[in-house]
């Protein structure tokens, strides 16, 4: 299977310069929020960090197709590029990182990266890897039953395809032509386990066995991801069924702040991938197409920096929920 790369410039994809700027802004924003999170971790303020770094193109490229309010997103823990794009703020991210009361995902109950926003149709997520897939299928099925045109985007790492839930959802999606887009962000590792011990054959190729298309795409190329995802959303909205997208990318950081990746991978490998940084690559594209210049880039960077600093400070100063809050809200009231 050939890996799909950008087949056309942005105009051919129907994207205008504002679109590109929005994409770029959110990719960079996600990166900076993440970088700041590691600093907070090293300062002993953040107990746990889990990163989006390296995957921003896959995330923003795919999620850019979501119609807010109409579609649902089932993100996984690295998808801050998506949740920021949909409207969560850096402040939200840091509040969650530090487990503060105002954390919109969980009020400080869950680890960082377990996104939730009913307002933004981001479905509450958890830690068991892969468990979201059948749920996403159900959400898509509801659209089908009611004859509505909403689409569901569900995401996971390559290891999230190893468990049964992924397969059960793929099969169900294929049977009922569900309006569901599967995005697998294949970043080569599952904690320490290399994809060669995780995935037999090819993830993207498997879609065919379920009767719907699967695509491998260069996950560090935001426009390429946007394009396959746009087609997938189009198919879904037209009632033609699901699509599987495998975005080939790389996890630039350790698995999390609890992980020491020196145990299992070479520094050179990471360096190689740093050269393929999706943000640098996109900026190159933008500059070559005269959409961005150095000074604009610096200006955006400064703006984000300030925004991130402010957000981090806000979250650091914010208060924890009362300890007794742990007892409340076990059951929903009728």
């Amino acid at each position: 299977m050939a890996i799909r790369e950008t087949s056309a410039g942005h105009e051919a994809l129907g994207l205008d310069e504002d679109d590109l700027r929005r994409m770029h802004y959110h990719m960079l924003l996600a990166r900076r929020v993440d970088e700041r999170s590691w600093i907070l971790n090293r300062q002993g303020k953040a107990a746990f960090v889990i990163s989006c770094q390296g995957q921003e193109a896959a995330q923003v490229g795919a999620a850019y197709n979501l119609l807010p309010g109409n579609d649902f997103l089932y993100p996984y823990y690295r998808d801050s590029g998506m949740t920021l794009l949909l409207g969560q703020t850096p402040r939200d991210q840091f509040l969650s990182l530090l487990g503060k009361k105002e954390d919109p995902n969980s009020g400080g109950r869950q680890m960082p990266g377990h996104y939730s926003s009913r307002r933004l149709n981001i479905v509450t997520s958890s830690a068991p890897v892969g468990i979201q897939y059948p749920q996403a299928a159900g959400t898509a099925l509801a659209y089908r039953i009611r004859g509505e045109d909403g689409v569901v985007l569900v995401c996971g790492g390559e290891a999230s395809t190893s468990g049964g839930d992924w397969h059960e959802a793929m099969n169900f999606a294929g049977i009922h032509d569900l309006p569901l887009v599967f995005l697998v962000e294949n970043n080569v590792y599952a904690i320490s386990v290399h994809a060669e011990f995780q995935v037999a054959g090819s993830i993207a190729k498997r879609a065919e066995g379920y009767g719907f298309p699967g695509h491998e795409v260069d996950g560090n190329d935001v426009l390429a991801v946007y394009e396959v995802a746009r087609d997938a959303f189009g198919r879904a909205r037209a009632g033609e069924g699901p699509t599987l997208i495998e975005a080939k990318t790389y996890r630039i950081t350790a698995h999390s702040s609890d992980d020491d990746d020196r145990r299992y991978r070479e520094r050179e490998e990471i360096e190689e991938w740093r050269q393929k940084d999706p943000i640098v690559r996109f900026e190159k594209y933008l500059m070559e197409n005269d959409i961005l210049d150095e000074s604009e880039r610096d200006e955006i960077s400064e703006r984000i920096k300030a925004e991130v600093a402010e957000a981090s400070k806000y979250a650091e100063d914010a208060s924890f929920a009362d300890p007794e809050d742990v007892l409340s809200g076990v059951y929903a009231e009728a």
Partner: protein
Amino acid sequence: METMNLLQAIHEGLAEEMRSDESVMVLGEDVGRAGGVFRVTQGLQEEFGAARVMDTPLAESLIVGSAIGLSVNGMRPVAEIQFADFIPPAFDQIVNEAAKFHYRSNGDWNCPITIRAPYGVVPGGALYHSQSIEAWFCNTPGLKVVAPTFPADAKAMIKSSIRDPNPVLFLEHKRTYRLIKEEVPDEDHEVPLGEARVHREGADITVVAYGLMLYTALEVAEKLSEEHGIQTEVVEPRTLYPLDKETILDSAKKTGKVLVVSEANLTGSFSGEIAAIVAHEAFEWLDGPVMRLGAPDVPAAAFARPMMDYFMPSAKEIEAAMLELARY
């Protein structure tokens, strides 16, 4: 008022909810065309169509997981697990997802799904069509576990379960599906989740039981009353989790003697919880040990009838335990 057995009562409850609320739907293996292996959903697909009464692939995690996702998007799904013994693949979706949806999102999301599962020993069912699985689920805050036994309760409680904004595991004892009939109120007769029922008042001993064992306990209670003048109070939890402790404790304090009977393998069963609550919170009132009766600690009922019968807690054993307690 119509006279119905348990199976018909659950069917009626489902049908009424589906009629009055378009978002209510049923999904599971063989629930559609065939109307369910026990025929609980018979006729529903004809009435409501294949989308609202959906035959799913054989995949329990998918059944419950997609029910969760349906509820996220405005539906009120009732998922059927064909036999409770086959609920383990859905365990993760139930205990880690559905039960935690509300809490983990700090109240942002609800998960109003109902999961029906027939449990309990039935002749010929053997190891994998017989298990009493309630203990697996009664340590999971956020989940409700109900197990009504009488038709009228069951009809009302399936409706309460569907309307509840929380995930509810609805257990149906297979062997009681057709065991008795009773009058079932036509209109909206309500039985809220979380309330135990006192079937029979008595001052001498308390028996707490549900499912098939409840029927047996009620019979034995009658017999003891007639033959020995022993007055047994029989309490049915109806909802196992969260448990109506008050009703049980009130009875324990009144009689001072409590026997908990269930069909589950005794050790580690939910009976332990009930007994522990009584032993702690009614200690001052106790005139005898908190006794328990259950199936022996072997995997499950056997296929061969003689072994199956031996496995089941019998009326005789229950009677002996009740007598022992009464005479304590």
